[in-house]
């Protein structure tokens, strides 16, 4: 198992390098001269020369990549055009806000999906199964940004019970999860984020549980007189690794794909930062944020894979 873990970690390195190549290439995807997209339009000739030297843009592209990678590895992701602050600082501040609501949403989705999935898998074809399946189809099909707008219409505009946008009454610096007057700002973003992973996790739970419940060893458990709850507990234990893998994937999707939700709720996370970068064509900020988010996704996948080998004794991958 340790050998497998080591191999899995080693395997992540080329993937990580590939991610940096794609992020590096983003500057060249942007129309126009890369120097132009790295600097404000009113930059002087001196600024341009300085920047070219700083990034080594006068050198061939592979050398540029190595230089850029060196900067990135030491935590230097460049300077934001708009705010003139280091991109690393901007991303680091925003990342916590995104990870907190994404994690809460993913855990919430997991808990509800487990409950619904168990009910559905033990009553295949029944009304509970149909209801759960309908929720899953809705969750997968709904445009999350539209759901977010509808939530704002219902709970902020019509009922007026929850705030529509922002993070806390005095901005994100004084935000606290332990005071309702502040934490209530996070309720609508979390609800909007939960539905899609809920649908997908529900589907996975139902499918894998139903599959396991039809296997022979379940018959054996019943035959030796175990109660139905104990049988289901065995089935869940068997389905858990698969559900866990999907949970990790969904958590990664929420952290990396939070741009729409955060834009609608003006939640100051990485997605909001990305939207700001797109609107102002702040390419260094865009590039840096995407690099950090993609690396976070790779990291989460690695951790989930390693946890899976720990919880599932059947995995003897060498």
């Amino acid at each position, binding site marked *: 198992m340790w050998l497998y873990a080591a191999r899995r970690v080693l395997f992540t390195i080329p*993937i990580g390098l*590939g991610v940096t190549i794609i992020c590096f290439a983003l500057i060249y*995807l*942007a129309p126009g001269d890369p120097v132009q997209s790295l600097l404000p339009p009113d930059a002087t000739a001196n600024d341009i020369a300085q920047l070219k030297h700083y990034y080594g843009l006068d050198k061939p592209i592979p050398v540029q990549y190595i230089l850029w990678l060196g900067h990135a590895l030491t935590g230097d992701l460049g300077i934001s055009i708009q705010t003139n602050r280091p991109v690393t600082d901007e991303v680091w501040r925003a990342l916590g806000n995104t990870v907190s609501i994404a994690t809460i949403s993913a855990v919430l989705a997991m808990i509800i999906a487990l409950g619904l999935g168990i009910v559905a898998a033990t009553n295949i074809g029944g009304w509970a199964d149909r209801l759960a399946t309908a929720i899953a189809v809705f969750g997968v099909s709904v*445009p999350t*940004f*539209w759901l977010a707008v509808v939530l704002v219409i219902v709970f902020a505009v019509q009922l007026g019970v929850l705030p529509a946008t922002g993070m806390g009454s005095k901005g994100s610096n004084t935000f606290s999860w332990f005071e309702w007057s502040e934490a209530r700002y996070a309720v609508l973003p979390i609800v909007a984020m939960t539905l899609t992973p809920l649908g997908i996790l529900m589907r996975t739970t139902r499918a894998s549980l139903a599959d396991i419940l039809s296997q022979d060893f379940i018959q054996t458990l019943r035959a030796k007189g175990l109660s139905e709850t104990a049988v289901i507990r065995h089935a869940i234990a068997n389905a858990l690794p698969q559900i866990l893998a999907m949970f990790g994937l969904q958590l990664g999707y929420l952290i*990396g794909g939070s*741009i729409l939700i955060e834009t609608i709720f003006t939640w100051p996370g990485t997605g909001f930062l990305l939207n700001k970068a797109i609107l102002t064509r702040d390419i260094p900020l865009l590039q840096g944020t995407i690099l950090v988010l993609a690396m976070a996704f790779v990291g989460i996948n690695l951790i989930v894979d390693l946890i899976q080998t720990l919880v599932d004794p059947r995995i003897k991958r060498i």
Partner: protein
Amino acid sequence: MSDIPADAVRLAQAAPTAHRVRGYWSAVWNRLRYDYVTLLFLALIVLIVLSAIFAPYLAPLDPNKSSMASRLKPILYKSFILGTDEQGRDILSRLIWGGRTSLLMGIAPVFVATIVGGFFGVLAGYAGGKLNSAIMRTMDVFFAFPSVLLAVAISGSLGSGLINQMITLTIVLIPPICRVAETATTQVRTMDFIDAARASGASTASILVRHVLVNVLSPVFVYSSTLVSASILLASGLSFLGLGVSPPTPDWGLMLSTLRQSIYVQPLVCALPGVTILVTSIAFNLVSDGLRQAMDVKA
């Protein structure tokens, strides 16, 4: 599969003439015929597609004619059946016209990505070895991005516009299709009938087209059909962020984005473009689910 050619040995025996082997596609159709949910939503998709195609004849009003006097009117206001937007344009007409860009964004990128991704997947699966590693490890790098993030990264760098949006979606959709095609091809390649075909002197091209492709096509097709709804959602998300078509052109995601400013004035009207996206997306999801069951492909 029923496309096994009758061989000489069997022909020499009394050929079973009364027994007519039913083809794969006729079996699929037979299963689909009794799946009323799938048929109902298939009809809905046909309706949405037709309304987008015949938009010039169906839309009651000019989708781009604005009027300061009738801004943000409610549903059933005068001749505006579904109300008006922030520039006094007819919502119903804009929804019908908007179907053109939104459906195009759901279908065209999936189509192109199926051809490109399918090609590389079959190539990787059939060739195996180093070529397989080269293609599939490249795809793995793209899998290291959540799809929304990859779309935002490419689209945000390329800038807005219809063509850029299509390029973005196609790039995002290629890796998953490629992986499905590669898995299916690898499975087929090791089967006995491929060896038999090779032993009987069939050329590589003929094996690929007549034996591999035929068997890879249905799983890839079913998988691609599940991506149409995802592509529509992704495209409307990009339009919502201002990375799609430019403003006067009607587009569901863009309409939702501009109407969002007016939720305090006309909440019901503002929710309409989203409802349209939701209904279309549910329809494509349910139809692809039905197709998967009818074609008996394991996901």
